[in-house]
């Protein structure tokens, strides 16, 4: 299907469902995407009235994971007495996963949340486009047919969509939220498990330790420790992040490589079994680090060791909150 018409259909279905939910008073607010203020971006909008639903949009630049705005209960999401509002949330597959994850971790109450599901058609890899355009200023971005057209002063460039789609979206198997009809309007599916070969990271894993180290060092060295990846992540909702702790100071805050390494190592450790593979972290990275490879590895570890895929339902206990007597322990040191 042509991307342009696909996007229009999705936008219409989102607006229709949002209108229905608001008019039937099933929800108080709807969280969705709206046109971004700068090109190649989208932004969050909270719709409170029926007549505002036309501000909701869907295109392939809606990279934010909206579940990010559910976890820390923001004042906007409460009424004057401090009770939480009933929320409708525009949910692509990975937003649905994140909502399920937050519910499994008892951070949100699913009774108060209604997802507006649809079949996501993938997200564009912004950093890849940014990298090719370089220093030139982008004035307008539009999607026509199967191409993304980026315009500037006296220049125009076409990017075929299927080449600039996010790596994670290429292997994504959960396009619409995994939910029941009670918690979701629109497209949804009920998944128990998914089959994944993880062939995309097999090549990286087969490298020698030195090659891996060089790759990781080159990729992460440009990191400025701005913590945008943490801010965008729906699973990072701690009141006090380990990098902000100053009593004790666990890790250094310089941009020396070991501090960068430690941040990414511990961040990955914290996201094991919780990452929903939405790719928001790499989309917001100002220096364009490809964090997807770490994300995929985490999914693989958890799938192989604990046979778990995050965010498929709100009932299964996440693996790092659970344990089994018969867990594999081949890594333990043993007598010869």
């Amino acid at each position, binding site marked *: 299907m042509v991307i342009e018409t696909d996007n229009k259909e999705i936008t219409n279905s989102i607006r229709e469902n949002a209108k229905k939910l608001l008019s039937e008073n099933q929800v108080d607010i709807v969280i969705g995407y709206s046109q971004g203020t700068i090109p190649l971006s989208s932004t969050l909008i909270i719709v409170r009235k029926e007549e505002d639903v036309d501000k909701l949009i869907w295109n392939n630049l809606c990279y934010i994971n909206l579940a990010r705005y559910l976890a820390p209960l923001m004042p906007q999401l409460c009424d004057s007495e401090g009770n939480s509002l009933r929320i409708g949330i525009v949910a692509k597959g990975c937003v649905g996963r994140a909502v399920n994850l937050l519910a499994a971790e008892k951070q949100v109450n699913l009774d108060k949340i209604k997802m507006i599901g649809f079949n996501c058609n993938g997200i564009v890899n912004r950093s890849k486009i940014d990298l090719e355009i370089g220093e030139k200023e982008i004035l307008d971005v539009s999607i026509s047919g199967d191409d993304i057209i980026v315009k500037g002063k006296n220049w125009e460039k076409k990017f075929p969509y299927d080449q600039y789609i996010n790596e994670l979206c290429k292997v994504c198997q959960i396009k619409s939220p995994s939910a029941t009809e009670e918690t979701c309007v629109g497209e949804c599916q009920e998944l128990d498990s998914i089959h994944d070969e993880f062939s995309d990271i097999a090549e990286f894993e087969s490298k020698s330790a030195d090659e891996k180290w060089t790759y990781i060092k080159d990729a992460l060295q440009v990191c400025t420790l701005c913590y945008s990846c943490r801010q965008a992540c729906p699973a990072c909702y701690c009141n006090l992040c380990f990098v902000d702790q100053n009593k004790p100071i666990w890790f250094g805050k310089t941009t020396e490589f070991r501090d960068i390494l430690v941040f990414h190592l511990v961040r990955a450790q914290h996201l094991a079994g919780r990452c929903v593979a939405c790719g928001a972290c790499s989309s917001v990275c100002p220096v364009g680090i490809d964090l997807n490879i770490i994300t995929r590895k985490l999914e693989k570890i958890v799938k192989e*060791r604990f046979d778990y895929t995050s965010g498929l339902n709100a009932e299964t206990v996440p693996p790092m909150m659970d344990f089994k007597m018969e867990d594999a322990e081949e890594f333990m*040191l043993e007598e010869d």
Partner: protein
Amino acid sequence: MTETVLEEKKVDKKWEPKIIAFLCNWCSYAGADLAGVSRIQYPPNIRIVRVPCSGRVNPYFIIKSLTDGWDGVVISGCHPGDCHYISGNLVARRRFAILKELLEFFGIEPGRVNFMWASAAEGERFAVLIRKATKIVKELGPNIKFQKEWC
């Protein structure tokens, strides 16, 4: 410390690894004690930190130890099912599994971090495993990847 100095150090036969060992109060710490009381020799490279349970060992501790210049880390707890707090070591085991795989994925020698089970009655086993861990870290050489670059 510059890399060349470290390279020289690696060649130097006198170089001995420094290993930090987090031992569970209820088993391995007593196991180490038993090894000592029974006069079983094990390498003097380890420095012991007593923790209430292997579940108390946050991955921060391990990574912080590596950035602070230790060449290796050993974590030892009770055998599965023997935990004083019922399930602390089982929770810890899942964390360690992930940390170990991540280290390998990042290209850091996973042998720097060693996990083991040793009960209070297994002084001999404790000594054998510490010998083995020391051998592994010794072969890996000094911990360069976490060294400070600017000094």
